[in-house]
């Protein structure tokens, strides 16, 4: 298998910024269609493969949480189309010329698609010292990758929406001073229930100050539930996307279970943010295939639509792939996930000595903690 983890193949112009590589699958039809939207077979198959990989790591993760290899699981089975289509269109890199990502806790697919190896997911899940995101401190899916502008995910619902204007402000200024680096945007993701927190409104407001509009792509993954609470019981039956209206912000609601629609919905919204340097609110309707988290059992919910199964059928029906190739891809993805877990479980755990590490950055102006936190001031 090509090392697609580190460097996913290039797709259309949205991806031109990455090195080119051709897709391994011969394309029978020229495009996959959904309503008026189409996706080239090349892109469609890449999306499909990344969706499969995402599903594989999620399912393996759930298994880990049940087997005792890990403890708590939360993630995004059912959101693969959204995660993958977003991950493929990110302007990846470090600093304000590139996109900043303020993510939710169901976004493994974004990271895998951007090139994060699966083991960087399982290390966090298994609470290893090698966990690059949190050194075994945080829940799974709480990523942090400075090189790619992935801001540390925190469990506190919606706070990422209050931070997003800050990164976007720096990006907008950076682009004004450096016109060739005027494409970076801030991408912020959260669930629909979380939009009831004031921070969601803060983001709407702070990104639309007159003359100071900010390039923030606000993404709401609407799975219609906050844990057990049905959205329809706690929120007026209008789309979350309507929240953009009082701010004159552009908005749209798309079917996040349809990868073709999702690809283009994200593309339209992103293009607008990148070029206009203004915000966009995009709501994607998604499924929650394994409930909220391992705390609610993480059993598969067969009543929810499965974007992956549907897309597989669609690609087969269109002659873009055959069942043998699908099986091979699935096996590959599962094997990749298994290898990550095996490797992970060999790795060291944090120790007693690590409790305080990384509390403070080195400081030349602090007489007590010049290097890092070392216990109470002057403690022996």
């Amino acid at each position: 298998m090509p090392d697609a983890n580190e460097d996913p193949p290039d797709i259309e112009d949205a991806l031109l910024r990455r090195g080119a590589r051709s897709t391994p699958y011969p394309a029978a039809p020229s495009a996959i269609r959904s309503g008026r939207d189409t996706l080239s077979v090349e892109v469609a198959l890449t999306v499909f493969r990344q969706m499969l990989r995402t599903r594989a790591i999620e399912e393996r993760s759930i298994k880990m949480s049940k087997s005792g290899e890990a403890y708590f699981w939360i993630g995004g089975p059912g959101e693969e189309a959204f995660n993958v289509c977003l991950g493929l269109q990110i302007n990846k890199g470090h600093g304000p010329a590139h996109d900043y990502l303020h993510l939710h806790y169901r976004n493994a697919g974004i990271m895998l698609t951007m090139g994060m190896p699966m083991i960087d997911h399982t290390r966090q899940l298994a609470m290893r010292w090698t966990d690059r995101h949190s050194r075994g401190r945080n829940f799974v899916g709480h990523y942090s990758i400075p090189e790619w502008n992935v801001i540390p995910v925190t469990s506190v619902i919606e706070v990422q929406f209050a931070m997003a204007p800050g990164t976007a402000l720096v990006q907008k200024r950076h682009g004004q001073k450096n016109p060739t680096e005027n494409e970076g945007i801030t991408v912020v993701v959260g669930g629909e229930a979380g939009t009831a927190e004031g921070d969601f409104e803060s983001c709407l407001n702070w990104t639309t100050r007159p003359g100071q509009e900010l390039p923030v792509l606000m993404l709401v993954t609407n799975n219609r539930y906050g844990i057990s609470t049905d959205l329809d019981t706690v929120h007026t039956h209008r789309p979350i996307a309507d929240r953009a209206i009082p701010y004159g912000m552009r908005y749209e609601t798309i079917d996040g279970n349809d990868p073709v629609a999702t690809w283009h919905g994200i593309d339209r919204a992103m293009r607008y943010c990148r070029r206009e340097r203004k915000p966009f609110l995009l709501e994607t309707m998604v499924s929650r295939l394994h409930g909220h988290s391992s705390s609610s059992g993480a059993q598969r919910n067969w009543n929810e639509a499965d974007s992956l199964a549907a897309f597989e059928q669609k690609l087969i029906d269109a002659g873009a792939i055959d069942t043998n190739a699908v099986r091979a891809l699935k096996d590959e993805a599962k094997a990749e996930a298994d290898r990550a877990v095996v490797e992970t479980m060999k790795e060291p755990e944090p120790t007693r000595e690590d409790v305080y590490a990384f509390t403070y950055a080195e400081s030349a102006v602090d007489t007590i903690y010049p290097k890092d936190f070392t216990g109470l001031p002057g403690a022996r």
Partner: protein
Amino acid sequence: MANMAQAVRMALHFGEKHLGVTDVFGEDVGPPLGGVFTATQGLRTAWNTPLDERGIIGTAMGIAYAGGRPVCEIQFCDYAFNVLDMFKIAGNQRWASGGGYDMPLVVMTPNGAGIRGSLYHSHSFESWASRLPGWKVVMPSNALDAYGLMLAAIKDPNPVLVLLPKALLRAKDTRLIPGEPADADELSRMIDAPVNDRVGWEPNWPNLEDHTVKIGSAELVREGTFGTVISYGRPLPLCAQAADELAAQHYRTFDVIDLRSIFPYDWGMISRSVLKTGRVLIVNEDTEVTNFGEHLLRRVVDEHFYDLSVRPRTLMGKHVPGIGMNQNYEVNSVPQLGDIRTALWDLATEAA
């Protein structure tokens, strides 16, 4: 034999039936879930709110202003920090309005570490809460007290915060709540919602009786002469266990005080015990800088400095930004049984 979650649920039922509770609400508090720890299953007045802690506390205040009797939940105390301003207001409005309005409000929230909850399901809240004048703050360490303190909280016409030690919510009490069936399985069949299909499920409440643990009354759970241990909530059973071990193995006995009420606290019981033993250890799991245990230590020093035989001590959580998910973080951040045993031993054996 109820566990603490069942005890809370029964107290709330008693509150609905006999004490005028009008609303039990919060995130996932109503059907179908009945609370992330099942503490609100089957309650007549339970309902689900938007995911908005400010709305929860604000609405609770409004209900209280208009004569209702609200009990609301912050799903984890870790998520109370965006609404501390409203906690403050709930606590100061009576004073600020010259006694114009009462604020009969109960907020309950799971507290502390011990469920492998990582950063945001491990916070302790009692030190923050103790800084909210106008509030009363209680924390049970067992199911019977949870029942009794919850009834007191409901009856008290002031805002009361009920902190429930997360790690003890599933711990069964050895004692029965008045009216509770003696058989734990029977209780479960009566009041635990079925795990899967809950459509049409109704609880079958036992005929519960009043049992009120008064606010401000601690309990002396062990008696001894070699020192005084003051604790509450999750570490309390560990303190009792450590005291038992030292008593059995080394004939060193201790007064172990379960404070139960954080504010106001039972100064009388603390004071009497300190006078008797001259040795004090205060144990809790909250972070150690500006910790409520330090307030207790200050009171002890204020009033009993010259009665102390040896240095009074605290054993508290480390000043860390969070409790890490890996257990090596947690066991080295919050006091464990071994730490308590060692601290007790040192306290008892230090030469006066």
